């Protein structure tokens, strides 16, 4: 069991779809974080579009909450229908409390086995006793009483979300909350919320998918084409109105073959362009990503990874698209793959992805994942990132123009339509420096060299990885798995362990020299990732000189790594 470095409280709300679990979760997040605490909320649902089982999982603490903990302290069950399907996702133990409506009957076997205390409040019956009463408000009122949250914080959060124009709805919520709180007065309290630690600076509430959209627009993206796919759709839905406000456009494409080609067209016209998708969509885009490489057209493709292959588990996370992102293109097609490290980092990494695509005139694949993308967190406002100049364009100064001139950096100036004298044809065919199709060996090799040179010689700076701490144990990891790693390491450090974390933001091109410097002298190296075949470990082995004593730790989704699981691995041969 991991010892938390700050006292956190974990709550899960469960019920069948339509019971209001997700809305109640959002209200609870708003109510608790409104008082100065930090929080995280993830959603888990069954495969049904509407209805079916649902769980809102929340964790609160006085410091930013990176990930879920090892167990939940309180489970609030609106009902127990199909809850056993979430058994693996809701770890609890005897210290926990199950708060349920007695009308819901016995908790499922897996919960009884935990030994958690069971307390009853007749949510539905009480809701009927107050005009406009709702089960969710009664339940939140009872929960508030047990975790030390003032009832008015919940009413205030409801008021904020429904707006002042609906005083009767707010009053009804208040009656429900108070009824629930009164009914819980005789129940022994559960674990309590910690006191907030006052801190300067602004806090934000956002999801990883929203953060990607914001970063993309800050990076200059003004054209997006996309096709709906779980769990990436929210990026498109957030960006559509945001682009309208900032002078951009979003097109809903007929499929992913269209989305990738639409953004290639938009970018050819000079407008930084992006699409967002998940594994199945990325598979469809792969041929045209090769076109973007060959024609040197900058585009950003965000892949919010889910469990695969094929349709897999569309609503749950995995880091199993690394191979296709790095190796999926046919031919020799150097491009860039980056991955954000947390929700706040989604802003800067998306912005960086746009900068890299524009600067290098190449596709950049950004591997986010469902665990970040669809999670909502209250975080400190991310620092503003600045990445300097972008695309090198051609202005006619009287010289003759060669679109694919062989430059030292490998980057050649791109003429934008409308500039007289710059006319060229962007082509997926092997071409010469002018862009004219060619099947000659010299042209083929020159252009392959040029495209490799620009990717490999670029200075990616300090953004390539987040390096944290010093020690003879080095953990190399990436993406959302770095979050429980950070929490487990913080706890281990509090016990005196000396551990360094190298969390890669730049997946490809590999940075063998930089990584070698970070693992030099390490007594042991652990590599953490969430997929079934050790894709990240094998990728690093292929490109980097790793020490002999490397321990790869990999397993598939959909269950997230928890800090305790990381800690167990750290303890082995420590």
């Amino acid at each position, binding site marked *: 069991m991991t010892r938390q470095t700050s006292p956190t409280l974990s709550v899960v709300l469960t019920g069948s779809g339509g019971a209001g679990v997700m809305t109640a979760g959002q209200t609870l997040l708003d109510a608790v974080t*409104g008082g100065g605490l930090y929080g995280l909320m993830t959603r888990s649902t069954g495969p049904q579009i509407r209805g079916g089982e649902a769980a809102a999982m929340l964790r609160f603490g006085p410091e930013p909450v990176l990930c879920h903990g090892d167990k939940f302290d309180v489970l609030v069950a609106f009902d127990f229908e199909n809850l056993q399907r979430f058994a693996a996702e809701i770890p609890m133990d005897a210290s926990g409390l199950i708060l349920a409506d007695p009308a819901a009957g016995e908790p499922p076997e897996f919960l009884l086995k935990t030994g958690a205390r069971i307390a009853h409040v007749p949510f539905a019956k009480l809701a009927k006793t107050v005009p406009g009463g709702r089960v969710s408000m009664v339940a939140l009122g009872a929960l508030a009483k047990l975790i030390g949250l003032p009832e008015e914080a919940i009413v205030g959060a409801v008021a904020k979300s429904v707006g002042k124009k609906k005083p009767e709805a707010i009053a009804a919520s208040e009656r429900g909350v108070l009824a629930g709180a009164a009914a819980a007065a005789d129940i022994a309290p559960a674990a309590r919320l910690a006191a907030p630690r006052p801190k300067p600076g602004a806090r934000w509430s956002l999801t990883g998918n929203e953060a990607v959209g914001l970063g993309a627009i800050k990076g200059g993206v003004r054209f997006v084409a996309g096709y709906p796919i779980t769990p990436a759709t929210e990026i498109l839905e957030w960006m559509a109105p945001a682009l309208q406000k900032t002078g951009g456009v979003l097109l809903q494409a007929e499929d992913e073959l*269209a989305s990738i080609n*639409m*953004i290639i067209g938009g970018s050819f*016209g*000079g407008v930084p362009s992006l699409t967002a998708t998940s594994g199945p969509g990325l598979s469809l885009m792969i*041929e045209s990503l090769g076109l973007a490489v060959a024609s040197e057209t900058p585009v950003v493709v965000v892949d919010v990874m889910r469990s695969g292959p094929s349709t897999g588990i569309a609503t749950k996370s995995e880091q199993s698209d690394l191979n296709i992102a790095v190796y999926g293109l046919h031919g020799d097609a150097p491009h860039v793959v980056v991955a954000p490290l947390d929700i706040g980092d989604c802003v800067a990494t998306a912005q960086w992805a746009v900068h890299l695509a524009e600067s290098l005139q190449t596709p950049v694949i950004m591997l986010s994942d469902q665990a970040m993308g669809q999670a909502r967190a209250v975080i400190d406002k991310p620092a503003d990132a600045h990445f300097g100049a972008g695309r090198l364009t051609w202005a006619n100064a009287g010289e003759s123009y060669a679109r694919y001139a062989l430059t030292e950096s490998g980057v050649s100036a791109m003429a934008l339509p409308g500039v007289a004298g710059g006319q060229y044809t962007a082509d997926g065919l092997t071409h010469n420096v002018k862009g004219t199709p060619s099947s000659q060996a010299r042209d083929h090799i020159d252009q392959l060299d040029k495209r490799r040179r620009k990717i490999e010689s670029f200075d990616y700076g300090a953004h390539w990885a987040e390096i944290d701490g010093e020690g003879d144990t080095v953990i190399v990891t990436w993406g959302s798995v770095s979050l429980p790693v950070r929490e487990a390491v913080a706890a281990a450090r509090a016990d005196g362990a000396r551990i360094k974390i190298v969390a890669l933001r730049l997946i490809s091109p590999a940075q063998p020299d930089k990584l070698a410097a970070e693992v030099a002298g390490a007594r042991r190296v652990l590599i953490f990732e969430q997929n079934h075949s050790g894709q990240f470990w094998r990728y690093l082995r292929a490109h980097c000189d790793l020490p002999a004593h490397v321990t790869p730790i990999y397993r598939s989704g959909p269950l997230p790594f928890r800090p305790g699981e990381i800690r167990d691995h750290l303890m082995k041969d420590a």
Partner: protein
Amino acid sequence: MNMPLDVERVFKPADYKSAVKPVWCPGCGDHSVLLSFQRAMAELALAPENIAVVSGIGCSSRIPAYANCYGFHGVHGRSLTIAAGLKVARPDLTVIVASGDGDGFSIGGNHFLHACRRNIDLTYIVMDNRIYGMTKGQPSPTTEPDWDTAIAPGGTGLSPFHPLVVALASGANFIARSFSGDLAGTARMIVEAVRHPGFSFLQILSPCVTFRPDQQKGWKDMVHPAMVPETDDPGRAARRLMTDDGFNTGVLYRGHRPPYQPHALAHLDPSELEAEFAL
């Protein structure tokens, strides 16, 4: 077409010709289409740098490199989508899409439906030779069912795709047909298609002299101007297209659907988007 006529410059067909020599076979209809394109652009007096020619893969799709305009020669079947993105991002450009019957109606068929429906201001020229020429003679969606080939011995037995009917049903705003051998007529149809707002579809019958010489040398005698005047009534257009012999030329339908327009551009600073996240 969005560019104002350039009154300062005088344009000749040769201004739209690049230095690249076409790969097409001698006598291929596509040579004539290229000449008609050059004539049409000169007549429209569009500056070459304000035109983009976008294509996919196939014989006809080689055309962008032969025009002295901006061009994009993409992957097989996706020309309409590159063009859609370009036109939406750069509404100031005149975007012309070139394709063939395999590229446009087979691998790119779905995009054809949605481009008609979306009605972005594009001109879509399909050089239809009823064959896959670049891969040396396989049946395409418009090939006759009994045409005997190595890959389909005895013929495909499939009824041919009717691109004009599909275009009409899918919402294309302008539908026309021409014959590549009629240079002036094809140039006139290109001019009309570019001038008409929204998605304009022009089928150009463009013979493949290498793999279909048997049937297509007769096309010259089979084409004829449409017997009835153009219509803006989709019902009338549907009847005439359903019953035509495939060799009617001219404007067959001219609709009034407003073209797709992106929302009015606002210019909020991106940092102002951050307000919604602040607690």
